[in-house]
């Protein structure tokens, strides 16, 4: 692969404090509780392809996405962008790298500043990089037409006047305007209606081929992953448990968790679902906080195995 790899991580770990831990807790002699949101993840993201990151809530997929675009600092491990170590990059270098790494957030109802006009929302990343006046307006108009938004009627509106699909187009335009190479799409259509989801997915694919973009598509929707992605990574409890070609993984999943996940997805051609008989994930996160990661993990996998013999 070599030069085909745009982003590579080595043993990436992100640990969060599970509960506020202040001076009072210290005096009382309480131990801080940690959650390992991303737990020893070593992956390669292939240039120009879409990699889907599939997992349930609390699996750490959003945290991994944020780490890759330098919105979070890893606790340990390294991240490389075109073989440059960006793990601890700072100052001007960080600003320049961030233009190349963008993110579209899940909920366009909360990710756009309600007080700002559409053209200011979309133009802000360029403005921060010193672009002004006519140059800025032209760039905004160009990117708006690319994502299917009419500049003359929408530029001076505010987010509350737009539909969900239009808002997500604004978020996509804002991510695109710095001419990035890599975009993390965090559940880009989960807040949209079924009839607008298809429009946005088609748009994302058009933009990808036009700008040679690399996507990391975070989703819990297997149908969306199947349509959009070339590669898929399945994440469970902070770890990548399975990775490979989308068509192969969705047809013949090897990991018991992937199997359970795919069996649980409702489909109009499936007469019945076969959910895992094990305990729910919430318990495991709870147990993990108190420290028995390994036990809890194997217990769940065991439970899954019983209903899905390999």
């Amino acid at each position: 692969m070599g030069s085909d790899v745009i982003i590579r991580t080595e043993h990436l770990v992100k640990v969060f404090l599970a509960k506020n831990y202040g001076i009072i807790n210290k005096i009382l002699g309480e131990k801080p509780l940690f959650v390992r949101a991303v737990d020893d993840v070593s992956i390669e993201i292939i240039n120009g392809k879409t990699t889907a990151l599939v997992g349930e809530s609390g699996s750490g997929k959003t945290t991994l996405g944020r780490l890759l675009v330098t919105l979070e600092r890893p606790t340990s491990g390294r991240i490389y962008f075109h073989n440059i170590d960006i793990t601890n990059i700072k100052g001007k270098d960080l600003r320049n790298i961030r233009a190349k790494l963008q993110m579209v957030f899940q909920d366009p109802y909360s990710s756009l500043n309600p007080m700002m006009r559409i053209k200011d929302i979309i133009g802000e990343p360029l403005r921060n990089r010193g672009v002004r006046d006519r140059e800025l307006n032209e760039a905004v108009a160009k990117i708006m037409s690319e994502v299917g938004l009419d500049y003359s009627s929408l530029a001076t509106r505010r987010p509350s006047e737009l539909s969900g699909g239009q808002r997500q187009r604004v978020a996509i335009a804002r991510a695109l305007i710095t001419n990035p190479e890599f975009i993390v799409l965090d559940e880009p259509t989960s807040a949209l209606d079924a009839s607008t989801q298809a429009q946005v997915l088609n748009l994302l694919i058009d933009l990808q081929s036009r700008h040679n973009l690399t996507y990391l598509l975070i989703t819990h929707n297997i149908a969306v992953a199947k349509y959009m992605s070339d590669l898929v990574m399945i994440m469970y409890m902070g770890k990548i448990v399975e990775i490979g070609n989308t068509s192969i993984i969705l047809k013949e999943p090897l990991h018991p968790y992937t199997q359970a996940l795919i069996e649980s997805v409702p489909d109009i051609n499936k007469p019945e679902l076969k959910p895992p008989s094990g305990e729910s994930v919430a318990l495991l996160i709870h147990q993990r906080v108190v420290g028995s990661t390994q036990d809890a993990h194997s217990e769940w996998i065991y439970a899954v195995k019983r209903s899905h013999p390999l």
Partner: protein
Amino acid sequence: MALLEVKELSVVYRTPFGIVNALNDVTFNIDRGESLAVVGESGSGKSTLALAVSRLLPPNARYVSGSIMFDGINILRLSSSEIKRIRGTGIFMVFQEPATSLNPVFKVKDQLMEAVRIRYEKEGNAFDESKAINEIMSVLRDVRIPDPELIIERYPHQLSGGQIQRIMIAMGLLMRPKLYIADEPTSALDVTVQAQILKLLRDLKREYGISILFITHDMAVASIIGDSIMVLYAGQLMELGPTKSVIYEPRHPYTQALLSSIPKISKDEGKLPAIGGTVPNLLNPPTGCRFHPRCPYKMDICSKVIPSLVKVDNTYVRCHLYGQ
């Protein structure tokens, strides 16, 4: 006789911006032990329908016309004290927004215990606390609540949204209502938990003959849970029929578009067929068929006359392409 018979129901909301036509001339039946899945996008009126059937519409809503017969009683004629007797063990409802469903000042245990006590009273049995606790524990395990003995000692604010939703579903199981209304109960949950709960509701229907009115935006979920599917769009009932017919032979252009916009292929095999335009604003809905501005088969008549509900084989369709 069907358990629930809704005839020509229309509901409007009065808002500062004008009258919102939330539901327009909706007619359907649910038999005992049958499940109906209502599919619609935001603004389709599906939540209004759930609230209308349980008589929980907000004060600015008004029933314009139609009737709702539940178990032989016209619900719209009942006083608020009479309807209270039907709620719970007659009609039980799980809401989309779980956080506000439980009383914040009582422990989960007390609230579930009350549900069991009410059912015991209705059945004419003496209340037995230890028996009730056993029942609660087994239902909580069924809905995959981890550590139920710890959870029931907690207050609602100490639980996550997913946990509260599962407790609400459990409460419904404890009540064993005749009609179980669920408004997007699994939309906030993970797919594995969603699959477990859908399976549980199907078991419940089979074991106790409970009827289910299940509201969802997801056609695939509807096909799993519903014996029949009703498709709503902008307050109009577009199609209603047995699940197999609606899924495999959709008649209405909107149902067809909705089904084909579910991604099934990979991007290398072609584009997703998308529906152009957006869901209309119900303050000022399109005239005639409300889907006509987005419809690929639009005719002159579509913008002028509201199509009537016609029966094609075993399916009801509201579209000018059929009938006459």
